[in-house]
């Protein structure tokens, strides 16, 4: 699946997008998997209260399942306008 990062999440992880193979069942499982992988993910996901997630471009939660999902995105609270 494609995993996208925006704003300071993108800056902390150091790339805007990557393709990942994962067996993670939920968004939360994916976050834990990434945090264990490298420090830059642990830094970006240190406080998940400050991170929002979209699954296939719909705002979602940490317990949202990933089965059949094509795209997951992580980003800070939105500041449009």
């Amino acid at each position, binding site marked *: 699946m494609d995993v*996208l990062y925006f704003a300071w999440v993108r800056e902390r992880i150091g790339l805007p997008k990557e393709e990942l193979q994962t067996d993670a069942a939920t968004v939360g499982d994916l976050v834990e998997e990434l945090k264990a992988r490298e420090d830059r993910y642990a830094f970006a996901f240190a406080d998940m209260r400050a991170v929002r997630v*979209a699954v296939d*471009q719909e705002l979602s939660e940490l317990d949202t399942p990933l089965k059949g999902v094509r795209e997951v995105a992580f*980003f*800070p609270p*939105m*500041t*449009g*306008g």
Partner: protein
Amino acid sequence: MVVRVLEADFDIGAERTALSAGRTDIGAVVSFTGLVRGEAGGAKIDDMTLEHYPGMTERALQDIEAQALARWDLQATLIIHRYGRLRPGAQSVLVAAASPHRGDAFAAAEFLMDYLKSRAPFWKKERTPDGGTWVDARDSDEAALERWSG
């Protein structure tokens, strides 16, 4: 029912004219234009970069527009949001709502802006002489949404 996300500037007069072109049933158009401020918390801002999530942005704006259309008697709506690097004084966003009477147009325009602030995937980074800072979401923006619920 128009949603546009673009880097280029827009012309409010031309957009207003296009909104009601060829029709005489519209009695009220309320529009809001957002501008980039040159100062934040006492610091001078050199420019602001708006990042967004192509694809989701358009979907989110269309969803917000659909909610407004379900809620008020609207004949046309418009949301234009810019991205990229913008200088102080530049236009960043335009929303407009057209209705037979002003009440629905005023309410819908405010609703569109309130939702767009914290439900459309945009992020602002302000560049000051000290460096770049991501703009934090404001509690007041979240509170502005709550009055529309229920």
